[in-house]
């Protein structure tokens, strides 16, 4: 079967499952919403950044990034559930290219992660927490897709190496949470202690969220070009590693 057909088939499966599962959609949005509202209101009183930026305005792009990080990583890791419940065998025994399978899973999860993140974005726009023009939206979408695709590929890479879903908690605690907290989603990157600055600069999500801040016309740290270069290299790396591991995987 041709490559595009394989990609489309896998994409169709991901999106069909997504359409069906409204409760999971709501569940996946609860945590970012909690962060936005509770942290936003809780720290709001103490926080003034560069004169006039409120805390809720500040963390808005960070929460969009958070939503993308969580849903993308879990999307990639869902390969592990397919392994557990045997559906992966059905996919792997088919006469289709492994790269096509991985591309389809990635695109499907990027689509669903983007939809969730876009719900946040629309909410932020409606409440006036984010103001953005048309080119800003396009630029934001570009950063969002890059963030999502990188972490889906990373999730698939991990799922390819893991044999059972018990590792989920481990990845949650030692990968997703640190990546989120060190990304500057919740605090500005200026004036941090040296060790923390190093860690935030090592976190690829930092550049995604900084890129989003730029796209939304907010305070940002790096040049958008630098953000793009770092994100594209990160995506390239996770894709190469993901493809290599996925190809070697047996169901």
């Amino acid at each position: 079967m041709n490559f595009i057909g394989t990609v489309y088939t896998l994409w169709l499966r991901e999106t069909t499952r997504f359409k069906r599962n409204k409760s999971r959609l709501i569940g996946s949005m609860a945590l970012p919403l909690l962060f936005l509202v509770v942290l936003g209101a809780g720290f709001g009183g103490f926080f003034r950044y560069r004169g006039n930026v409120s805390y809720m305005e500040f963390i808005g792009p960070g929460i969009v990034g958070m939503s993308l990080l969580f849903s993308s990583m879990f999307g990639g890791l869902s390969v592990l559930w397919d392994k557990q419940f045997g559906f992966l065998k059905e996919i792997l025994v088919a006469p289709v290219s492994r790269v096509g399978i991985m591309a389809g899973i990635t695109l499907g999860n990027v689509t669903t992660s983007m939809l969730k993140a876009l719900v946040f974005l629309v909410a932020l726009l409606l409440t006036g927490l984010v103001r953005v023009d048309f080119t800003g939206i396009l630029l934001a979408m570009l950063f969002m897709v890059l963030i999502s695709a990188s972490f889906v590929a990373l999730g698939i890479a991990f799922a390819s190496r893991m044999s059972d879903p018990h590792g989920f908690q481990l990845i949650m605690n030692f990968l997703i949470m640190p990546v989120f907290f060190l990304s500057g989603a919740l605090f500005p990157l200026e004036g941090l202690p040296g060790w923390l600055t190093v860690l935030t600069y090592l976190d690829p999500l930092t550049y995604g969220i900084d890129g989003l801040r730029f796209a939304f016309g907010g305070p940002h740290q790096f040049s958008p070009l630098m953000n793009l270069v770092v994100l594209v290299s990160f995506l390239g790396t996770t894709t190469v590693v993901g493809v290599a591991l996925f190809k070697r995987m047996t169901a």
Partner: protein
Amino acid sequence: MGIEQGELFGLLGPNGAGKTTLISVLSTIVRPTTGHATVCGHDVGRDQDAVRKCIGVVFQDPSLDDELTGEENLDFHGRLYGIDAETRARRIDEVLDLVELIDRRHDLVKTYSGGMRRRLEIARGLLHRPEVLFLDEPTLGLDPQTRRRIWNHILDLKDSYGTTIILTTHYMDEADQLCSRIAIIDHGKIIALDTPEAMKAALGGDLLELGIADPDPEFVKTIRSVPEVAQVSVQEDKLMVTVENGESFIPRLLSYAHDHDAPIGWVSMRKPNLEDVFINLTGREIRDEAIKEPGDRIRIFLRRKNK
């Protein structure tokens, strides 16, 4: 060994014998470590895509997407195998009809019972009309009625499409009734390969069991000396005798028992089955190991949980 086109070939053996591993190698899920095998003329290690194109596999463990409907599972499969939309729709109707799931086609698979899932998996295995169909324990954990229905479907298929079917099972009676030829596997090696009839005939006739504890050695010796008797084995509280024409041997046996004052509690006679063939070849019963295998229990548990 070779398997002919259009044959229904059985792989028998206790769990852990290597049946599933063999299927995994032949269906390109696992690469062979040594040796080589060809399916439809293609090498399973080198030419994986060509092999994948001509086979269908019904795996031992469940392999459906619970969150899709029955029809969507089939549609996904049809797309992956590059079947065009029109043919796909027609064949989905056809196979759903065959396995009697047509009225449940729009229901999510997670609402299906174990037997329905199995039937859907079999329907899926046939959707792309494979030349060779692998069925790995297709009736494991199913109730007897469902087992029989699934077997009827499979026999139908073989007749309608001339599909070569390779099945693994540890239900000996199932293999006996269905397969034209059988390979018995134990510890990763094929220890017998023949038709079920020939295998049973090789045991040398009917099986007589005598209820007698600690039989007199002279009595056993007398039975052994009869030319028609192929085998005698003394077990804890019974004596097993393999003999040609068991019916006519029983009266003679009783008169020997009378001569030796041997207290026989009961006599039973049956035709040997594949279970006896297996015991004769390995000295063990197949079912003992089937139950002891922890993987088996987990698998049955998983199936139940999924119901």
